[in-house]
């Protein structure tokens, strides 16, 4: 099963929840916001979301900007 993370296709064998994905990627929950198929998912809901085939996930954080 494949999904798109920040524009890159990735594939997994066994089921994976959003928080497991974040953890696996070693991303710091405090500094990011996650969008799952165009809807923003609050941290507390990450465990409830199980990735499905073709899911599109965006993980965003702040950078310098004017």
């Amino acid at each position, binding site marked *: 099963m494949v999904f798109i993370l*920040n*524009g890159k296709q990735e594939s997994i064998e066994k089921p994976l929840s959003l928080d497991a994905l974040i953890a696996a*990627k*070693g*991303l*710091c929950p*405090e*500094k*990011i*916001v996650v*969008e799952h198929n*165009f809807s*923003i998912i*609050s941290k507390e809901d990450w465990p409830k979301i199980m990735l499905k085939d073709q899911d599109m996930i*965006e*993980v*965003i*954080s*702040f*950078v*310098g*900007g*004017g």
Partner: protein
Amino acid sequence: MNMEDLLALGGRSIKSRLLIGTGKFSSYPLMKKALEVAQPDIVTVALRRVDASSKTDNILEYIPKSCILMANTSGARNADEAVRIARLAKAAGTGPWIKIEVVQDQKYLLPDNLETLKAVETLAKEGFIVLPYMSPDLSMARRMADAGAAAVMPLGSPIGSNRGVKTRELVEILVREIKVPVIVDAGLGSPSDACECMEMGCAAVLVNTAIAIARDPVAMAKAFKDAVSAGRAAYLAGLAASGNKASASSPLTGFLRNEIL
């Protein structure tokens, strides 16, 4: 400068009329020092996809907690994208403050006033405190103000060009005619440019590039801070009119002629 001269913006009383952008600094610690000396009340940040491989720091840790964080929607090419970024920013914790930046033109990075107006309408309804970066046009600035913009932010000249207030003629009209604060954003290259904007009656200025890429960004940040308060103070103190002729500042001493009066 008068302690009571505060800028009412988005329901807050803003002390510093110098807003600072956080892009282009050579390092976060350097940026932190610049922010510490300039003491802005409002600081802008941008959003970007996390690169899992790179372990960059969290910029927020380098911005004084006292600052209001205002995300911009840079990268948005239309109202929908701007709205989407605004919501992400809010979810990410910057709160209701958003700088709308909708740009189609990649050469001059000039704002798209029409798509910007649409984004203002949507986001103001959603309760955002909306500050649109815009091309200085009275009719569109009026619409943005009527749609609930907390301020309008006309460009002085193209982003990062450091060319100064090349749009002075139009910005002056906005200052006189628009009921919300006018904040000059983009293109200010030197403290004297910022000072000039404040003397014109602008409510504030937003500066990023000119500070970030100066040889000494910390000293430059302080220079902009002082120039902005100088310009504001001059506006409040009532600049004298300029004339075409000279007017002596010293008595034209009489004794030298030795004339018998």
